[in-house]
């Protein structure tokens, strides 16, 4: 089934749907991971986006019940060069197409994804409309331009949990001390919870708007700020909450959680041209001089020049020098822009979860 793609810069490309009819409006971004499409699809940070994979063959190993990063698919459409409908893997329980159809997400193949990626690289992440119904290029481009976009919008409200819940560990964390952690869900990836849990944390996941007092009332050993979609500046009320938690309990933030910390410190965020999305981003830990290969998915970034002097930059991106990690010099709070919980991606940065445990130990 023919699909037409219209970008706000006027580009029109065509492809085929491998999931049946559909239409989607969103911000188009590319991801350079060669594996891990199921984790990408279930990562809530992609809410509101259309994702194209730079690796051309997608679907090879199917999908399974274990590699879920949330209970749903978040991108509004998924674009690949060639869909692989005959998966081969001992864990596969379904094909990618069936998985997408189950969540009514449009899957598109047969497009020059490298061309699309180059366009995004040069023009930046763009507004885009994809449709099997509207096959008029001009109309698609016009509708893409008309869409409001993600800047300044609160995308968290759509993905955060409605009610608090306790994470049920899938693996026991050993016999050591248990830590009580409250995790703000801005669109949390389950692997963050799995890794905390494996390190002895009993995690209570709370909605993004949970007031600070309620969190403190739970008497946690530490507070975790999750990843999430969209523009941190668009998320209402959260920054103030986090600011009032500073110094009260050890805080560890990832991705959107890191950006929110940045705003809480009084800093500013800005939108990257096309973001960092993939599993091969080199990050230098300035405290050790070592390089870790990281999993990333962000379109916004904390501006290091906007940060007060009591904030130390701890990690930078080796490719573009952008800020990847920071910590408060006096208070127990640190955060990274990238995804130490990986899923998908390299495990190099898992040590940050250990640092969080150490921090709770020191403070506790």
């Amino acid at each position: 089934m023919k699909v037409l793609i219209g970008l706000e810069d006027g580009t029109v490309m065509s492809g085929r749907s491998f999931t049946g009819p559909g239409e989607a409006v969103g911000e188009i971004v590319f991801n350079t991971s060669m594996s891990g499409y199921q984790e990408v699809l279930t990562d809530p940070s992609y809410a509101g986006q259309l994702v194209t994979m730079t690796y051309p063959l997608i679907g090879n190993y199917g999908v399974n019940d274990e590699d879920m990063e949330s209970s749903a698919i978040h991108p509004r459409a998924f674009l690949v060069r060639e869909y692989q409908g005959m998966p081969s893997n001992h864990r596969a329980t379904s094909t990618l197409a069936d998985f997408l159809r189950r969540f009514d997400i449009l899957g598109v193949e047969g497009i020059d994804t490298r061309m699309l990626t180059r366009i995004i690289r040069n023009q930046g992440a763009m507004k885009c409309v994809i449709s099997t119904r509207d096959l008029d290029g001009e109309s698609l481009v016009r509708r893409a331009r008309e869409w409001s976009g993600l800047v300044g919008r609160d995308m968290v409200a759509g993905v955060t949990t409605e009610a608090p819940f306790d994470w049920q560990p899938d693996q026991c964390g050993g016999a050591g001390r248990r830590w009580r952690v409250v995790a703000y869900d801005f669109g949390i990836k389950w692997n963050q919870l799995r890794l905390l849990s494996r390190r002895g944390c009993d995690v209570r996941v709370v909605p993004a708007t949970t007031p600070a007092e309620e969190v403190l009332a739970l008497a946690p050993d530490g507070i975790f700020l999750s990843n999430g979609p969209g523009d941190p500046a668009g998320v209402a009320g959260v920054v103030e909450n986090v600011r009032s938690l500073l110094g009260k309990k050890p805080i560890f933030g990832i991705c959107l959680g890191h950006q929110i910390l940045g705003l809480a410190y009084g800093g500013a965020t800005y939108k990257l041209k096309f973001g960092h999305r993939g599993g091969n981003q080199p990050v230098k830990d300035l405290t050790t001089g070592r390089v870790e290969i990281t999993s990333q998915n962000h379109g916004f970034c904390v501006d290091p020049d906007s940060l007060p002097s009591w904030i130390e930059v701890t990690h930078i991106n080796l490719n573009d020098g952008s800020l990847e990690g920071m910590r408060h010099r006096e208070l127990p709070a640190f955060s990274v822009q990238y995804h130490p919980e990986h899923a998908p991606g390299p495990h190099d940065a898992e040590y940050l979860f250990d640092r969080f445990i150490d921090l709770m130990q020191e403070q506790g």
Partner: protein
Amino acid sequence: MPKRTDLKKILIIGSGPIIISQACEFDYSGAQAVKALKEEGYEVVLINSNPATIMTDPGLADRTYIEPITPECVIKVIERERPDALLPTLGGQTGLNTAIRVAETGILEQYGVEMLAADIDVIRKAEGREEFRDAMKRIGLNVPESAIVHTLDEAMAAGEEIGFPIIVRPSFTLGGTGGGVAYNRRELQELCTAGLDLSMTTEIMLERSLLGWKEYELEVMRDKNDNVVIICSIENFDAMGVHTGDSITVAPAQTLSDREYQQMRDAAIAIIREIGVETGGSNVQFAVNPADGELMVIEMNPRVSRSSALASKATGFPIAKIAAKLAIGYTLDEIKNDITRETYAAFEPTIDYCVVKIPRWTFEKFPEADDLLTTAMKSVGETMAIGRTFKEAFQKGMRSLETGRMGFGFDGREDMTALDPDDLEIGLTRPSSRRIAFLFEALRRGMDIGRINELSHIDPWFLHNLRQIVDKGEEIRQRGFAGLDPEFLFEVKQYGFSDVQLAWLTGTSEDDIRDLRVKNDLVPAYKLVDTCAAEFESYTPYYYSAYEQEDEARISDRKKIMILGGGPNRIGQGIEFDYCCVHASFALREIGVESIMVNSNPETVSTDYDTSDKLYFEPLTREDVLNIIEREKPDGVIVQFGGQTPLNLAVPLASRGVPIIGTPPDAIDRAEDRKRFQQFLQKLGLRQPDNDTAHTLEEALAAAEKIGYPVVMRPSYVLGGRDMRIVYNEEGIREFMAIPGMAGTEHPVLLDQFLKDAIEVDVDAVSDGRITVIGGIMEHIEEAGIHSGDSACVLPPHTLSPAMVEEISRATRAMAEELGVVGLMNVQFAVKGEDLYVLEVNPRASRTVPFVSKATGVPLAKIATKVMMGMSLAELGFTGEKEVHHWAVKEAVFPFDRFENVDTLLGPEMKSTGEVMGIDDTLGLAMAKSQQAAGQELPQSGNVFISVRGDDKDAVAPVAEKLVHLGFHILATRGTARRLEELGIECTRVNKISQGRPHILDKVQDGEVQWIINTSSGKRTTEDSYTIRRAALDFHIPYTTTISGAFSMAQGIMALRKQEIGVKTVQEFSKDID
């Protein structure tokens, strides 16, 4: 941290001659490393015995020793050069093993030489079976259990530990016979009983069989700050049980979910840390159980490898270059990524295409060998193809192989429709060079993917993709030419179908399809290999084709020349031709012309993105090359450097109006067409051996009668000595004509007078169309009748008279002038008595060009390139022959030990995979070095066993006499002994095997034979003589199968008696050239 300043001079050990499993990938890696170290200001000393390499070019390293890679020679180099450090990880297994043996002598401590990248403990830990297993256990990883046992009881006990199925491998059996897979105790008992009996050392190895498991490789790099990155993942198409070098491989891994891939990545990182490779690259191989994902570590190579070369080409990340920089103290985050210029080497390449590597075998050269792929590598080369999909890459790979195939089936080259279903299943089950053809047939017949997977263990993912190709092929056939609408045509091109396949499927011609495509503007787009999937701007013009929307080729308006490379290595076309292509590129750069390289061989220097201004990694077929030409519109195309592959394209390209520069294609035809060649020689008054053609047995018999026996017979449509035979009698003619396809076809069989005992001479010359200068005259050591590529040769000629040398030069010049050669020309002559015969003229680069260049210090291929660009030899200052005052001996290296049941006799069919050069001030020492470099140890005392055919009995006598004089003891079989005794040469008779024990084999096994001289009448006349030769091979005893070869060995031994071997750089040798 910047580079180390405490080091000034670094020694690199190369990998020596091209052999199976160690080919030009080490020239690629080595050349990169040498360049990188020199860039950093270090003085680089190199030892490598292989003259056909770029790395041994005198301008590359500061001091280049083309000397045998033996511990003795390396020690001599160290004593002479006093390097600060030794970098052992660039010369393959040879470099690593030699470095260990050198280190063990204590010389490194004595002279304060530091071992860089990996020290001796690291190498031992990675290479030692027990040590490696223990290391893996420590980090919680599993390796397949194995044991070496000497009794049945031990075997049964070990079997319990290992768990079934178990591979049983007897050690040291003649021809590697015996062994198998045991699925239960009873089978284990049977196999071990037989195996212990077969093994000459009563030893068998048992190993847990992982047959059918999926196989993966990761390329890992580490720097001194312990930063570790994975450069590339590779998934093998063929399951465990087939050597990775013999397996089709695909990058990146296709059927691993991220969780499984990351588990493997973690393991690889843990392994490089545990083994302790301080800096550089390593290759780690894994097996994965497809049923449950269980992971096993198979092996780890703490050095650059064939896979690292492949990974470099597959990703654009130059592993060897980076490894060299890490070795001298840089860290990954300090080294810029050449391709993006703004990012660093501390990252993991991500690719947005699919890479398929397909091995190239040459079983046709060894018809006695079983075409069965096992854990011992047998392929001699490989090709790589890049596509946006697996299907596209796979089909491109198939047509890059130079086997005449134009894709995955559908090319009319092979019809298996009559194949018995049982035979089809066997063909799927048995891994072989032919399995791809069986796969095609099975899919064409609609065999169930599950069944094919059950038989072949090839992952269903690959099979499904292949099925899609087959289904699409059938759809094309059904639609026919009229059904090729633009949309469908674009789709099938995205499936990788070639124009030839489409023509065959639609009953049209390649040009019909091409015209249809061009009319509809369906031409390939060229995409960049950029390490980063387009995330960053890239500057390195390394392209592959794909049928896609956006073309990224950046076409310049400079003057530009395209060089067509040689494709995959095979016997007869190897690194020598790549060397010439690379030199062409360097020459173009020197004169400011843009160079565009087209090649499909991932092992080579020519496909390094640094070598030429532009690189197109593409199949060398008419369609693929024309596509690039139409896009780039080069001012000229060079076809004469890449061997037969581009030469075959000369006429098809010229007919499309492509400007072929240098010698006109018609001259090539004149030299290759038998009739025209005859007339050409007659015109010049030159002689060739009597010859004739025959279509039938009767004609052949009559022709042989007229010419006189023996005659050389060959089919007219193949080159490179395939199916060439020396026939001594009528019976031989009958046998030859009975070979299918010889008699009764439109291609006649060729018969040539065999010039018995003639001396063969090879000449390389360069002509600018005005004057011709001889680059070098090489006298063969082996007599005429042995393929020139297999024969050792000496430069300058060592027995020819000055008058004959002059006659050879005159004839060469006359032929170059008559043909109108512009560029290189190679002539093969035979000298019999006072008569000079012309055997062959090739107006193109030859296999000996690099040898001549190294021996004489003249860069022939570069000069030829400039001449082709219109410069004159006078302008280039090359107007007279060089006179050398040293001796250079080229010796061939053979792959016999890789093939069971194959005889080691030499003949008119080329069998060698590579070559070495021995260079010294005396002929004897040059010969001795050439032998040592080729892996033949020159015995200094002990017993020499001589058994020669009737004709050779007198000829061998002077050798025997010399050996007795040198203090050797001669052992001989009855006939040979009788003749030697008659001639007054003392010897001891030894039984042939058929004469009862103790026989010669007993002596061989007891270590009582130090050298075997054995000649035979050309085919396997007696089992005895074959068994002896095979035993020599299996027990690593020096052996010689020609009398002339024996002479030169003896000369080498004599020279070593008089004088110890010394080492000297090629830069020093070239100083004494006038």
